[in-house]
């Protein structure tokens, strides 16, 4: 599809007149409808749930990063009173199939390691016992004999001839290697007058929610149904793949969604833990709960973030105009490849950032090593490429002696250029980047801080300002998982979301959602506000429920900042259908045309004569009870369901010169941070931090701020504290919170936040996703701020985290 063929507005089954008349509920900072139960401690997280007869599982983790399992003696464990069953890879081999993966095989992951372990912490056995204490006692009694194998940890060494193989069947540790060229990159570099080049390093960290991954499995031999309660973020999208791993028909798998205490990606397609719980329940003959403890979560969660080594160049002109990017990236995926190289697809959706550039070359080397695999972490790879890009931009500014804000301003895509086609084929739907920039300069009191920084510098203090911009793509398309291959085996193009909306005989509205989507975002509040907007009812009167997989319509769940947009579309769609029916009933009863009716104050009334009305309760009762009062062709009931597909996605071209449209709803943000560095100790203090985000139409400003701040602080953790540390045997040295540091309330700045709204022409109400944005910026801002603060030392920040030790080293080397 070309830009010219894009629809002027997406198909939205909602009342356009409502959008134009002004928002009543959307855009309001209503208190979250989810809050009361969480405030009371009644969140019903996975570990809060008990089933009658439920047993508890714990795993034995491998102390080796790479080893053959020679022998497992479970006899002492089995003899311990309170132990129900001990399970090893032999049981997995006999009764289960490998876990699902979007990566091209054979990169096979099993529930429990069967012949060898491929990373430190991988499960080698599991104990099911009456309680978790006994299960752990029994784990201590399991004796495993290992034959340690050579460990491969460095992704460069892993690529070399003769390196130990993580997967013998694959025959190589290079899971994927390819170069994509968009535009005329070599020519652009040859013609451009200048270029900068940098080697940049972004190490592995992880989302680390406070609630780990957990599930409860239950098997009913009478019906053959396996029920799994899980705090995974998705299930309708892939529950049939879990069924395949369990070797049962998908129709006999019932996944019940459970509230999660955070995810940030780590519960995205969380397949291993739910499958594991189901598997154990089938073997044990009773319900089994498995919840990761913190160490297991850190070393075995299948959800590390990107672990990248960039060699990147930016070509530009004397006047600061950017011309081209050439990027070579080695990404250390760990021992498995569940999402393929989707995290690079993510980056490619906005690889040029908010800047006008036509030529990009992207070489990717996805390498396997003996580490816990990558999964999703807020940004899903785009936060990394954004950091890389902003580093190059700062280098270009320095190279030209140009102001860092000015060089960016000169290259920003302008409002008249939207929808903007980026070199990869993905589009940016709308934007006003200049507006966000002007706003952040004002909100940050930029000129004041520049003066403060200069004054401090003259006094010998090390104050620095960092400025960074980022686009924030939202609503992914599944094509980003497979457009890497010319002939992929499996080419999903669906990433829908569904909602059912029912008005009961008393006029109360119940919405059913079809993903597990409750992890700290605010799906129920979003849904309530959309319903309120559609029907003009109090949001707190709306009841939100969740379907299990046997009752679920298609859904993809939260991820890629898609949920608010997609669930709004689904709810608006279902609401639209119900409203149509209500209008038909009301126009029949009130004897007016449907066009003369409006939804107001919890009912339907005649426009201009509000006393002529019917409440939703009256209509509901009629719809359910008084069939003969309805128009002849209207059935009983008052409910509808709607599946909202991705409104704007296209397939890639066969030759992959055009990756299609795969992430088109793109927000934009700028952050400005001011830090002071104590060069003698390397410690930082924050003097100011401002952020302006444009995520299209805002549903709830208060919750949007929460996402922005939360994401920004996670980005701060990435920039300053968080990194998996391995010893030379591949053991994770910081496998608990003693040495894996999460920012506390005293480690972070207070942010000043403002918003801009540039709606999307394609989404419900013009909403764009905003959940990931904060994290896309902080690493770039802090890198720049610290460089600026250490300007007398000529520092270049090229790797994260920026530790106190590194700062002291820089300051000592002058």
């Amino acid at each position, binding site marked *: 599809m070309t830009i010219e063929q894009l629809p002027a507005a997406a198909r939205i089954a909602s009342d356009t007149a409502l959008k134009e008349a002004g928002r009543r509920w959307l855009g309001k900072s209503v208190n979250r409808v989810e809050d009361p139960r969480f405030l*009371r401690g009644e969140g019903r997280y996975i570990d809060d749930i008990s089933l009658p007869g439920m047993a508890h599982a714990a795993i034995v983790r491998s102390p080796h990063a790479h080893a053959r399992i020679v022998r497992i003696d479970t006899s002492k464990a089995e003899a311990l009173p309170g132990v129900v069953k001990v399970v090893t890879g032999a049981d997995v081999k006999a009764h289960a199939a490998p876990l699902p993966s979007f990566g091209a095989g054979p990169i096979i992951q099993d529930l429990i390691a069967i012949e060898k372990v491929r990373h430190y912490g991988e499960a080698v056995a599991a104990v099911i016992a009456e309680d978790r*204490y006994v299960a752990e006692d029994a784990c201590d009694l399991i004796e495993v004999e290992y034959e340690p194998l050579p460990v491969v940890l460095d992704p460069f060494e892993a690529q070399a001839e003769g390196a130990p193989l993580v997967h013998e069947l694959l025959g190589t540790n290079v899971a994927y290697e390819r170069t994509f060229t968009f535009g005329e990159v070599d020519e652009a570099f040859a013609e451009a007058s200048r270029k900068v080049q940098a080697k940049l390093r972004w190490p592995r960290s992880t989302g680390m929610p406070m609630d780990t991954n957990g599930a409860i499995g239950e098997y009913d031999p009478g019906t053959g149904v396996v029920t799994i309660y899980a705090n995974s973020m998705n299930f309708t999208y892939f529950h049939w793949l879990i069924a395949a791993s369990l070797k049962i028909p998908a129709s006999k798998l019932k996944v019940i969604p459970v509230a999660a205490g955070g995810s940030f990606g780590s519960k995205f397609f969380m397949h291993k833990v739910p499958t594991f719980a189901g598997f154990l329940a089938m073997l044990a003959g009773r319900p089994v709960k498995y919840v990761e403890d913190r160490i297991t979560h850190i070393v075995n969660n299948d959800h590390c973030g990107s672990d990248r080594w960039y060699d990147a160049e930016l070509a530009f002109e004397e006047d600061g105009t950017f011309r081209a990017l050439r990027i070579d990236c080695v990404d250390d995926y760990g021992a498995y490849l569940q999402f393929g190289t989707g995290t690079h697809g993510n980056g490619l959706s906005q690889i040029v950032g908010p800047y006008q550039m036509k030529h990009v070359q992207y070489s990717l080397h996805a390498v396997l090593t003996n580490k816990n695999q990558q999964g999703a972490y807020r940004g899903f790879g785009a936060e990394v490429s954004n950091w890389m890009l902003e580093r190059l931009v700062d280098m270009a500014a320095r190279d030209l002696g140009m102001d860092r804000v000015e060089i960016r301003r000169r290259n920003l895509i302008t409002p008249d250029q939207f929808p903007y086609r980026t070199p990869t084929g993905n589009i940016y739907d709308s934007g006003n980047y200049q507006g966000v920039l002007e706003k952040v300069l004002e909100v940050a009191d930029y000129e004041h801080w520049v003066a403060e920084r200069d004054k401090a510098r003259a006094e010998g203090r090390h104050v620095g300002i960092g400025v960074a911009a980022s686009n924030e793509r939202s609503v992914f398309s599944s094509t980003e998982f497979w457009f890497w291959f010319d002939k992929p085996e499996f080419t999903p193009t669906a990433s829908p979301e569904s909602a059912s909306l029912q008005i009961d005989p008393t006029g109360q509205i119940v919405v059913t959602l079809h993903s597990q989507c409750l992890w700290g975002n605010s799906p129920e509040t979003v849904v309530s506000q959309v319903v309120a907007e559609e029907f003009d009812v109090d949001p707190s009167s709306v009841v939100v429920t969740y379907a299990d997989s046997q009752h679920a319509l298609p859904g993809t769940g939260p991820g890629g900042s898609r949920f608010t947009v997609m669930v709004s579309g689904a709810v608006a769609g279902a609401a639209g259908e119900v409203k149509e029916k209500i209008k038909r009933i009301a126009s029949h009863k009130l004897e007016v045309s449907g066009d003369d009716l409006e939804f107001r104050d919890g009912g339907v009334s005649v426009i201009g004569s509000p006393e002529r009305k019917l409440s939703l309760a009256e209509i509901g009762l009629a719809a359910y009870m008084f069939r003969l009062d309805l128009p002849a062709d209207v059935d009983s009931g008052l409910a509808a369901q709607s599946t909202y597909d991705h409104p704007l996605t296209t397939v890639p071209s066969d030759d992959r010169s055009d990756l299609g449209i795969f992430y088109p709803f793109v927000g934009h943000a700028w952050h400005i941070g001011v830090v002071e560095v104590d060069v003698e100790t390397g410690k930082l203090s924050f003097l100011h931090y401002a952020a302006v985000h444009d995520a299209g139409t805002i549903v709830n400003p208060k919750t949007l701020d929460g996402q922005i701040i939360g994401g920004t602080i996670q980005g701060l953790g990435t920039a300053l504290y968080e990194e998996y540390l391995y010893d030379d045997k591949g053991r994770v040295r910081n496998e608990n919170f*003693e040495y894996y540091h999460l920012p506390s*309330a005293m480690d972070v700045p207070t942010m000043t936040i403002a918003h801009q709204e540039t709606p999307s022409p394609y989404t419900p109400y013009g909403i764009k996703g905003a959940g990931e944005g904060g994290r896309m910026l902080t690493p770039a801002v802090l890198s720049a701020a610290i460089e600026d603060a250490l300007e007398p030392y000529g520092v270049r920040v090229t790797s994260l985290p920026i530790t106190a030790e590194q700062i002291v080293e820089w300051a000592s080397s002058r």
Partner: protein
Amino acid sequence: MTATLPLRVEVNGRSYEHDVEPRRTLADFLREDLGLKGTHVSCEHGFCGNCNVLLDGEAVRSCLMFAIQAQGRSVETVESLTSPGGELSELQQAFTEHHALQCGFCTPAMLLTAKEFLRDNAGETDERAIREAISGVICRCTGYQQIVEAIQSVAARP
């Protein structure tokens, strides 16, 4: 080895008598034996503070105490904050007004820790003092700012 010991403890104003294994943590006792699921375990090694409860009015890590150590003591969990009629407390109300919770997992610990702070530092609205008070409870969702604002709003009331 003695299997269990008798424990008598007051929780949320109510007296309980249970036989507990010595190694049963206070957190697990509250959650499993008393069914009070509002106290959460997250790291189980004393670093994240999500398990904080009030022991004789003082916030402590319930994952680092054995239940038997609460013999004859009084414990308050998040469940004690709502009125007998089920209404949210002023502090809980402030949390929802200011969007001081997202996933809610650290929220019980934050509420109890904040309750202690507000009681012992009446009227203290200084941001740094409030941040210091909650520095031992990790929140991964909010970035803390809206939690601080919620606590400040209660502290500021006459």
